[in-house]
């Protein structure tokens, strides 16, 4: 028992007699040298702070991330822990619920840094919260891994401690635009409907750029308010503009509603892209037959085939382990949760220590082969090293249509 554990014991015993405290102190002092020797007594855990939205609007995502973290933690702890030099230290993840309120996420990040004194941190969910909390990480110099930060705006503060597993938003729009150009050569008109929020709007703007770059005409680009209950007017306008390619960004409920209302208004287009909802089983369940032929892009999918040197060994193994533990296929949010753990682990092992500076330097160098894909980071910490797969729902199942090496099927044109 280390001295650090003494405080809560004492405070749990109100009015403890001086004798009791003295005995406890004596015992812990005697025990302290024991934790210095290697191998025999339990090692001090490596503590990682993870603020999550376990309640509130983002709770589905928060729970998915937690599943990813837990799978990684359990897999690694089963082997004794992360190898730091010659010693294996177990992982301990300190969770707090920030109730989907970003200011609370920032406060909790601060708490994790100053009171819980965690060694490393995982960012909260989403680009907005990741950006806000990264200020805390920078202030305390804690290397922080962001599992769900894709917008480049997150990384534009010049911070040194932030590393994200998601590639930038244009890696979602560019391949999709290429496919459209190749497979639907007579598609000329593009309509974009984006939610007025950091990530969906940034993504919408990337699609606009990608379309224009290839000579497609963007005939409609509007944003809708968060919590919009009815998209009929926007969709009616879109219908009037006769687009060939419709792109919609937003949260799951927005995508479900928009897809339904598209059918309500009889909108047909060659290609319909929605990000990110179709990657979730929820979307397919909620939209039923309407989900067919909807395309999407995502940063990871069980169909990818990566061999890796991390705790999982390969993406196929990862999928298998996840299924065994949670009885469901992992989606990209689960996977990125495990991925940040895998990267951190490899960085610690390579650096041979948990010293923050050494680990940070190792992270900067990149070159991590994980089940999520090869991970290296650019100068501001964003991943730049892999190609996110493009998928399409065919017959009620998501199928990868790009890149070629892991393709499951071809793009099918025409959405009812």
């Amino acid at each position: 028992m280390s001295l650090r554990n003494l405080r809560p014991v004492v405070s749990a015993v109100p009015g403890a007699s001086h004798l009791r405290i003295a005995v406890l102190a004596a015992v812990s002092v005697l025990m302290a040298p024991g934790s210095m020797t290697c191998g025999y007594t339990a090692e001090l855990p490596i503590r990682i702070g993870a603020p999550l939205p376990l309640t509130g609007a983002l709770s589905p995502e928060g729970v998915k991330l937690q599943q990813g973290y837990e799978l990684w933690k359990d897999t690694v702890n089963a082997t004794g822990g992360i190898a730091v030099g010659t010693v294996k230290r177990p992982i301990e993840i300190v969770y707090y619920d920030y109730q989907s309120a970003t200011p609370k996420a920032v406060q909790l990040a601060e708490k994790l840094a100053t009171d819980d004194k965690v060694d490393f941190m995982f960012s909260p969910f989403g680009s907005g919260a990741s950006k806000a909390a990264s200020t805390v990480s920078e202030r305390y110099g804690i290397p922080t891994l962001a599992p769900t930060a894709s917008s480049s705006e997150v990384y534009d503060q010049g911070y040194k401690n932030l590393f994200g597993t998601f590639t930038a938003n244009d890696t979602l729009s560019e391949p999709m635009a290429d496919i459209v150009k190749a497979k639907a050569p007579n598609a000329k008109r593009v309509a974009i409907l984006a939610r007025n929020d950091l990530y969906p709007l940034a993504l919408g703007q990337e699609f606009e750029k990608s379309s224009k770059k290839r000579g497609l005409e963007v005939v409609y680009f509007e944003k809708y308010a968060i919590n919009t209950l009815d998209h009929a007017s926007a969709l009616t306008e879109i219908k009037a503009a006769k687009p060939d390619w419709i792109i919609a960004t937003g949260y799951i409920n927005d995508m479900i509603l928009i897809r339904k209302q598209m059918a309500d208004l009889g909108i047909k287009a060659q290609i319909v892209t929605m990000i990110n909802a179709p990657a979730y089983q929820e979307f397919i369940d909620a939209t039923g037959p309407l989900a067919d032929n909807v395309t999407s892009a995502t940063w990871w999918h069980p169909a990818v085939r990566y061999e890796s040197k991390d705790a999982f060994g390969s993406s196929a193994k990862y999928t298998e382990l996840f299924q065994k533990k949670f009885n469901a296929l992992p989606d990209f949010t689960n996977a990125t949760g495990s991925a940040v753990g895998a990267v951190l682990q490899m960085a610690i092992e390579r650096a041979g220590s948990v010293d923050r500076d050494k680990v940070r330097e190792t992270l900067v160098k990149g070159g991590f082969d994980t089940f999520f894909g090869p991970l290296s980071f650019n100068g501001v910490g964003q991943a730049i090293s892999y190609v996110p797969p493009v998928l399409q729902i065919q017959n009620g199942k998501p199928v990868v249509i790009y890149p070629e090496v892991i393709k499951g099927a071809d793009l099918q044109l025409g959405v009812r």
Partner: protein
Amino acid sequence: MLYVQILINGILLGGLYACIAVGFSLVWGVLNVINILHGSFIVLGAYLAFFAYTKLGVHPYLFAPIAAFVLFVLGYAVQLTVINRVLEAPVLVTLTTTFGLALLLDNLMLVAFAANFRKVSLNPPLGIIDLSDWFPSLDLIVPVDRLASMLFALLFVSLLYWLLRHTVVGRAIVAVRMDRYAATLMGVDTVKVFALTFALGAALAGAAGALLSPIFPISPLAGTNYLGKAFVICVLGGLGSVSGALVGGLALGILESFGALFLGPEHSLTLSFTVLIMLLIFRPNGIMGKRGFV
């Protein structure tokens, strides 16, 4: 043609809105209680319909009366145990009490059902009516499920109207709304009337939830959206007036649809709330003009 389609969208949306608001308006008008629980009741009704459809195969429209009944019982219980105790208190207390109850119900639903969005996907789907099939020059589309909800809204309102005008219970409710003390003097059991009215409001919410389950994604977090709309509609249409809920709903639906067209979709919510404030300041009795009694 674009404008006509937008108008149709607005009217259908208005029907949905009327469904949402009619129960809320009843409770506000009769009990003088702003029932923050209303949104959560709608969500609960939607969940019940969702599970009935996916597990038992019962069509949401057929399930609506059952949802209404379940919520009726729940509403009756809630009113007798909690709301009744604060009925005489100022609006602050009643509003905050229902707010607390809503927090509780939402959290219970979150724990029970998780926050994942569900929606009923009717199989076979109800589809759409394409007017250009009959009149080739009319390029207008009417989704059948929204049309059905619109018709149901009219049905609810008519039933409620008939209930309030032509049954003893209904007359008692109206009497209590006019003057609760005089009603007591006339031998009306006000406690029972309050419980009944609140339960009726909850039942309407439950039925609305069932009707909306194929249209809107369902989650414990969706309740506040419905509530916000209900507020605006009640003020628009006139507090406590049942037909006012219909008028208010239609007005809001049309306003929002055209607002989204002319101002852009990101401003539609701003528009409805601004309209609400303007109305409260200049014409608190809404479009119907007076605090209607039926």
